[in-house]
């Protein structure tokens, strides 16, 4: 293997030389409800499962140094980068980042920005994570706004992996979205679903208050008009909220404000169902027996829709992959989030998004653009 010019450049910038197939995944070891124990455990397991990855744990070096030797791992594939502070889950993102410039998520995002890491995984404070990346990373060419995605279990399975999860984006990276932003989200979501769910032609839909193309706010109507014209995306039109759990679409595109409300509502419904089941279990023997009779089916359902197997959801649009794991992530979820990050790197997710965005832009230049703001909501 030759010592080529790109490696010389990378080295001149102070980076340790890595083979092209070696992916360095930076993990915020202090972020999450169960940090650092579960995060370190997840990273340790990933070091054994992914021989082509190097995992960089960012956080309190003394604490991480105590934890790592307690776990099975590969000491040549997990390293520690010290960060003296961290952001709590309930801290206000902007204030916390300003007050703790050397917090783990900021140091981790810096490492990736400097080229000393290729992707980032965090289970910590979502707002702080997004902000830390937004301040340090550049957007991909053609991407106007990044989008935070989330996965939601549905009735249907999709792709070669029989993935039961659909992708919803944006769920809160920004508040508003223009028609162009929504089109960008659709392109990014589709590229991600193709790679991670191994779904060759993911069905992309816009979330609206009706399935008709003319329904919804102006940005949604205009985005619909633009997406209908794309041939690369498998755009199936608008869907309504009730279609999300049905799995009508593999990628659901919406603005950050709506996406966040929808996601929280779906989580709330799910929590309520669990609480009702607990209540029923306590309340009457007959109900309890009914639940016991259903227990194997419930377990099966739980295993199908286990979010821990998915690991995390991406922040799309930046020049590096960022996988946001759930705040309650345990070791298994973290391992899977690291695997998703590795898959994103191996499949050149960012490159694919940039290529799709460039193609979209080229088409927009070739054709007279549809009257973007012409549609009116119902």
């Amino acid at each position, binding site marked *: 293997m030759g*010592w080529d010019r790109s490696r010389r450049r990378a080295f001149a910038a102070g980076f340790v030389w890595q083979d092209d197939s070696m992916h360095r995944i930076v993990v915020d070891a202090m972020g999450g409800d169960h940090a650092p124990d579960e995060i370190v455990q997840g990273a340790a397991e990933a070091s054994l499962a992914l021989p082509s990855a190097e995992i960089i744990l960012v956080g309190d070096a003394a604490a991480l140094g105590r934890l790592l030797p307690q776990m099975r791992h590969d000491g*040549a594939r997990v*390293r520690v980068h010290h960060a003296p502070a961290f952001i709590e889950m309930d801290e206000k993102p902007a204030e916390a980042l300003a007050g703790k410039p050397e917090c783990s998520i900021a140091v981790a995002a810096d490492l990736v920005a400097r080229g000393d890491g290729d992707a980032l995984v965090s289970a910590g404070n979502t707002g702080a994570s997004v902000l830390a990346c937004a301040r340090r990373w550049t957007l991909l060419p053609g991407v106007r706004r990044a989008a935070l995605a989330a996965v939601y279990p549905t009735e249907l399975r999709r792709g070669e992996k029989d993935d039961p999860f659909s992708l919803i984006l944006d769920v809160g990276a920004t508040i508003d979205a223009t028609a162009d932003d929504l089109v960008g989200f659709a392109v990014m979501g589709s590229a991600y679903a193709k790679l991670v769910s191994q779904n060759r032609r993911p069905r992309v839909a816009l979330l609206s208050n009706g399935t008709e193309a003319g329904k919804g706010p102006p940005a949604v109507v205009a985005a619909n008009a633009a997406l209908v014209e794309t041939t690369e995306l498998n755009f199936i039109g608008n869907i309504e909220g009730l279609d999300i759990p049905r799995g009508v679409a593999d990628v659901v595109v919406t603005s950050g404000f709506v996406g966040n409300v929808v996601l929280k509502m779906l989580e709330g419904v799910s929590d309520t169902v669990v609480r009702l089941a607990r209540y029923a279990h306590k309340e009457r023997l007959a109900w309890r027996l009914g639940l016991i009779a259903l227990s194997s089916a419930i377990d099966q359902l739980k295993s199908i829709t286990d979010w821990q197997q998915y690991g995390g959801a991406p922040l799309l649009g930046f020049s590096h992959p960022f996988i946001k794991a759930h705040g309650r992530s345990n070791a298994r979820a973290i391992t899977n989030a690291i695997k998703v990050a590795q898959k994103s790197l191996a499949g050149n997710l960012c490159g694919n998004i940039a290529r799709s965005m460039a193609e979209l832009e080229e088409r927009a230049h070739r054709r007279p653009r549809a009257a973007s703001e012409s549609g009116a909501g119902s």
Partner: protein
Amino acid sequence: MKPRSLIGRMTTLPSRVGQKIGLFDYIPEGLPPGAPPPRHTFRWDLDKTYLRTEFDSLADLAKSAIETAADKQAYPGATALLRALRQDGHRICIVSGSPTQMRQVLAAKLALDGVDYDEFVLKNNLKNLLRGRFRALRAQIPYKLPAMLQSRIGAPADAETLFGDDAEADAIIYCLYADIVAGRVSLTDLERVLIASRAYDDDAARILDLARRVPKHDAVNRLFIHLDRRSAPVGFKHYGPRLVPVFNYFQAALVLYGDHVLSARQVIFVALEMLDSKQYELGHLATSVQDVIRRGRIARETALQLVAEAQEAARSGALSGRTDLPPFEQISEAFRARVRELGPIDPGLIEPTAPLDYVRLVDEEHEHRRTRRKHGH
């Protein structure tokens, strides 16, 4: 040369056949009369320590048995390390649990790798089988301990370093051997350990006799356990600072550099062999340095001193002809950066050696082995 008579050939036939099928025990010859004792003896296990061997299932065992010398793979860096030790005139003794029937192929593998050795002891399981001593087939302590004691009686060195792995009971056997040699284990305690390890009576009597006769000196100051199963390093904490679990042989070379056994140039050769294996990259080696520092096995200053000395060695031609590597100034800066980014280290990671309860350790090992067998690995 005069042709041997038919009678002569007939009378030596059983002996030759016995040799061929590995029926006879190999007893190390020790030092020739008048030879000075070795300065430093390095004792190596083979399977999972030097050689990448799988014997967790019957299929693995069968595969291992029919592999040729060329098929067998050494762990990256192990060959360079053994050759460096040998070049310095140290004594190399190999004690392996592989059957004597494998001698030819294993010796051929070592020859292919250019590894020279003084002793090469294998386990005579055919003899155990023929004598109906089935317990001895899997037993490690009643086999390895006398082999090492016998070897030391034949050639007592001032210092000894042992290399084993985490697959079986190497850590216990090596520590027990170290403590017997240092005179820290009484014969009564040893007898209790041998009972716990289910040694046959005659084996136990022989071990006790060897332990009585072995020259006593606190010679074993370093034990390496190659983490082939990637066991958690903390599992070896109670063995004290002399036992170092290592993920790869670059880490072993680093510790030996810290012990003033290897030079920076020799550490570079171990590193180069690992890079050539394509299983490691410079980043992995830098991370391996960080890992041993973090675990308190070498000091930061030692690592930085090594980098400086390695830079000197590289300037004087240690890396000549390596066009695949970046200039060493850049490599060394990257290594220094990896040490810097580590931050504070917990000083309480290494505990001083407390007397080990070998009977309990042997019982625990038996329990682990039973559990592993139950779970099929």
